[in-house]
């Protein structure tokens, strides 16, 4: 156990903590991609609703507010 050089231990420690940060970053970036995906879908929904309201005329008040 003691025979292992200190250099290797330092490399491993740096690698380990770098890996933790990378994994964390991947999770957060993925979460924000999800959020922007939801925003995009919400815009699509709004468009669909607007089209629908235009073709259906006056019953726009009955729609649920998004």
């Amino acid at each position: 156990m003691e025979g292992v050089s200190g250099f290797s231990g330092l490399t491993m420690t740096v690698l380990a903590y770098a890996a933790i940060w990378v994994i964390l970053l991947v999770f957060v970036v993925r979460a924000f991609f999800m959020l922007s995906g939801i925003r995009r879908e919400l815009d699509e929904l709004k468009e669909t609703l607007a089209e629908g309201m235009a073709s259906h005329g006056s019953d726009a008040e009955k729609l649920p507010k998004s």
Partner: protein
Amino acid sequence: MKSTSLHIILASLAAVVVCVALYLVFFVAPTEATLGIVQKIFYFHVASAMNMSLAFGVCAIAGAVYLLAKSNKWRKRADALGVATAEAGVMLGAMVMVTGPLWAKVAWGTYWTWEPRLTLSLMVFLLFVAYLALRAYAGSDAFGRSIAAGLAILGLPGLYFIRVAVERWGGAHPQVIYKGGLSHPAMRQAFFASIAAMLLVSASLVVLRFLIERRRQTLDELFLEADKIFG
């Protein structure tokens, strides 16, 4: 939105505690005599492992609530909590699975051994990878969700055995906490700070993913509503 601002406070608190923990680990705690600097992996490795078990445990409870709850409202909440904790747990598991071998290469001379705690941890990790795969591929319908919930519940015995594996079946895994290691008070301080840091990070990520999932559920409901009105 109130929950969003609460979440920002939680995330900033997590960031501060992470900085404090890293400072304590690298600049205050003494370097361990026999292992050298590689022992510093231990602090965040164990903290991630503990939080992984916690996340999977909460996921199993959420699964039970999902399967038992009568009201649709609670089922949806439990489902969102389930997917949030499973993803956070898999993320923490990935951290454990990467940092562990890097430490072991120096301490044991090999990246991986088929030792009880390692084997069981890998098994539970893969179980929750399967949970996410089920939700992704078995269709997002109620069926896929309930299978995933059942799977999470069946993971509970595994979680228990990870905890007792070293005592029951032996193995090379160090038992620092229960055997009264960490003699130096600064080491203990750094260890508890790491646990607190990972707990706050996991909690804020779970909340983030939970809020995203809730929004997605609301969006899906709105789409259904729009379909009903316009056909």
